[in-house]
């Protein structure tokens, strides 16, 4: 299959996935128990005031009409206006998006940077002490829950040792280089929490695929040709083992985004995740729809890029 057609098909699938996510989000929000007017108004609101609010939100119209209007606006690039803040949803999201990108990219980078060496270490020491240690770390990592890890880290490094801040993305009143330092210090705990819960599956997958790769004929041949173990491991086996790991990164992006919601909430990190939490509490449908659309698009785009990269790395994928 030509590369252009391959990319086109992936794009088509991506657009369909985003439409599906948008539709499911739209319907699920309206199936939720609760009334956005009640969530934002005071307890002494009159029935007339409540009805006026529902009209203002466009929730007085039949569901199908709401859906068609929403899709129409979406195609024009209009995500709507926040119920509670009365400002465009895009503004709300763009304020928060950079922080989520910074957090997830850092966590993803740390996962890869720490995960590959650990996986290699375990595979090359298969059955020995290091292998067992890495496996224990990997399995433990799989069982960790972001809020639990976050609270422990906050207590130890934020309160007891006082090394790192408790919450937020940076300190007020700092500028220039000091600001970057502040951003970095605030990023450490959320990024480490998110990395710790992502690391387990990555390390275990890396280990398993590398062990498989090390059992392949080309590795035996390389050994017979006198190549050093280190060269065989890092230059030949690892490159082949990276293919499934690349897929896993794409798959993990979804979990990473989900984890960011919890992480940002625990650390009061001002990203999209924290915004989603607040929008859920306030039943702010437009913000939730916009946020989920953005996250779905991010995950779909990342998966598409992974697919396409995979296509380049492994010609058999394009053929299939």
């Amino acid at each position, binding site marked *: 299959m030509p590369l252009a057609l391959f990319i086109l098909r992936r794009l088509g699938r991506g657009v369909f996935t985003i439409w599906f996510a948008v539709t499911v989000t739209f319907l699920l929000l309206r199936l939720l128990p609760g009334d956005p007017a009640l969530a934002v108004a005071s*307890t002494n609101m*009159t029935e007339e005031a409540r009805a006026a609010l529902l009209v203002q939100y466009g929730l007085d119209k039949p569901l199908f009409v709401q859906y068609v209007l929403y899709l129409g606006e979406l195609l024009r690039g209009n995500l709507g206006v926040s119920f509670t803040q*009365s400002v465009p949803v895009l503004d709300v999201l763009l304020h928060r998006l950079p922080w989520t990108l910074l957090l997830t990219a850092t966590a993803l980078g740390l996962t890869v940077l720490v995960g590959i060496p650990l996986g290699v270490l375990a595979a090359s020491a298969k059955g020995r002490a290091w292998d067992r240690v890495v496996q224990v770390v990997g399995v433990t990592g799989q069982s960790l829950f972001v809020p639990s890890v976050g609270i422990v880290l906050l207590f130890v490094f934020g309160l007891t040792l006082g090394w790192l801040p*408790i919450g937020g993305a940076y300190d007020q009143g700092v500028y220039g280089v000091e600001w970057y330092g502040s951003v970095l210090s605030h990023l450490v705990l959320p990024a480490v929490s998110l990395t710790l819960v992502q690391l387990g599956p990555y390390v275990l997958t890396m280990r398993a695929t590398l062990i498989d790769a090390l059992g392949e004929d080309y590795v035996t041949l390389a050994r017979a040709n006198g190549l050093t173990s280190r060269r065989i491991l890092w230059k030949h086996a690892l490159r082949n083992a990276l293919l499934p790991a690349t897929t896993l990164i794409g798959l993990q992006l979804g979990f990473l985004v989900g984890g960011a919601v919890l992480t940002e909430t625990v650390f*009061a990190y001002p990203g999209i995740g924290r915004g989603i939490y607040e929008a859920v509490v306030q039943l702010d449908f437009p913000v939730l729809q916009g946020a989920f659309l953005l996250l779905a698009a991010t995950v779909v785009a990342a998966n598409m890029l992974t697919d396409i990269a995979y296509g380049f790395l492994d010609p058999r994928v394009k053929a299939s």
Partner: protein
Amino acid sequence: MRHNKPAVVGAALAAALALAACAPQAPADPDEGGSGATAGDDTLTIATTTDVVNYNPLIGNSRSDYWVTNLMYPHLLSIADDGTKEASLATDWGYVDETTGFYEIRDDFTWSDGEPLTADDVAWTLNAVKEDAPAGTFYGQMANFESAEAVSPTRVEVRLTQPDTSVIEEIGFWGNVVPQHVFEPEGSVAQFANDGSDGWVSAGPYLLTDVQPGQSYTLERVEEYPLVEGGTPVPAQVVYRVYPDVNTEILALQSGEVDVIANALPPAQVEQLRDTEGIEVAEVPGLGYAHMVYNMDHPDLAKTEVRQALAHAADYETIREVVLQGQAVSTGSSPLMPVLSQYYDDSVTEYEFDPELSRSLMEEAGYTAGSDGMFPVTFRLLYSLQDSVTSQWAQLVKDSAAEAGIAIELQGLERNTYLAKTDEGDYDIYAGNFAIMDDPVTNFTLSYLPDGAINYTHVDDPELTELVTQASRTDGDEKVELMREAAKIVHEQVYDNVMYTQNLYVAHSSEWDGFVVKPSELLSIVSAESVAAAHRVSE
């Protein structure tokens, strides 16, 4: 593998530029905005658990909305510990005749853009709220408001649709005054976001200058604020920082990241923080109550004896001692709480916990207990899982009711579902609480009159309605007597089961002092007057 060095360097440069664009710029002149001779240079950092949702105080409804916008938009009246109203922007208020009220306001308030705050701003605000019906608490007070007129630069007269001796004080306390010259060009006050696209304008002690959603709200001192000693607020800057919950706020206070926790402390944390070095705990009078309401649309609960049986089947003393750790007072099972000293009637006493009496009342109502000692009824008690205190005592209520042979099924729900079910009347017993019930007539009108927005009992008692209606048209001792009579009916008929008023506690760093304590969590030590007067101890 060969690295494409120019690409890597280019990417690094692009990333650095992108980050550089994000870095905030240092203010050109740190002293810009002015500071009086007695004012300090400190920043007071206050922790909150929610973002500011609305910068328009006429719409805002969350705690953070109130706390931040109250630093910019003055109220006509403030409140004393016993619920009586005090002067703030208004120096005098009352009635010209039965259907005309008035406010006399100060002449020394100025908006931060230099425009004077006059009676025109007050009258325009009141009329705009009535006309546009924004979804905040303010509009809910305006049922009998018809119109307002500025009859002089310092006097506003209010026309009422019918006699109402509470409305002038209630509007004065709950409503903020906004600048007409900023809000009027924006159209409906119900839809104006006031999100600071062109900056904010303040007549309070501080002006919002920087917003980082999800993280912080920074306010800078304004030069003149007449309600603070010396005329200039003491802290140069106030920063509200957002944390996920009170527990994280406490960590931040202990680590010195914040100076004040605006939210009331959970009862279990109060004693621990009192013993923590470097932290002060301030007691704040409560002006609300926690209660259980029995839905009279339910045929069993429509019987007075059944409601009385339920009222005598809860151990209130244990709830206050165990769940609230003694940080609550009995109201005598009356909505006229002791804190409302003018209205409180000590002849009305709390429903005694007496399972045997409950059983007798159930039998009187025509029920017979089975061989297991249980009556053939089950009531569903609805409460919000976000309310940790109610969630705890709901279990105690269930256990003590079982002693009286009455089965209660607990239904703890997520807040929005809880609100929806409450609104639909989909409960047998409703458990919840009110933060501020400062005016008995308003409270009774909303809670016990047929069209009341929070009439969760669904009560329609003509005698009670008549008493409350009469009270809304009288004043002084006569009004108090009428309300006491009304409260007796509520108590006897168990139209409401008021369980306690919670004493509230807030924490601040011992490095700060000078706070002015006001009742309720909304005001506590973070009212405009309090924040403007706070100072570092070392100063």
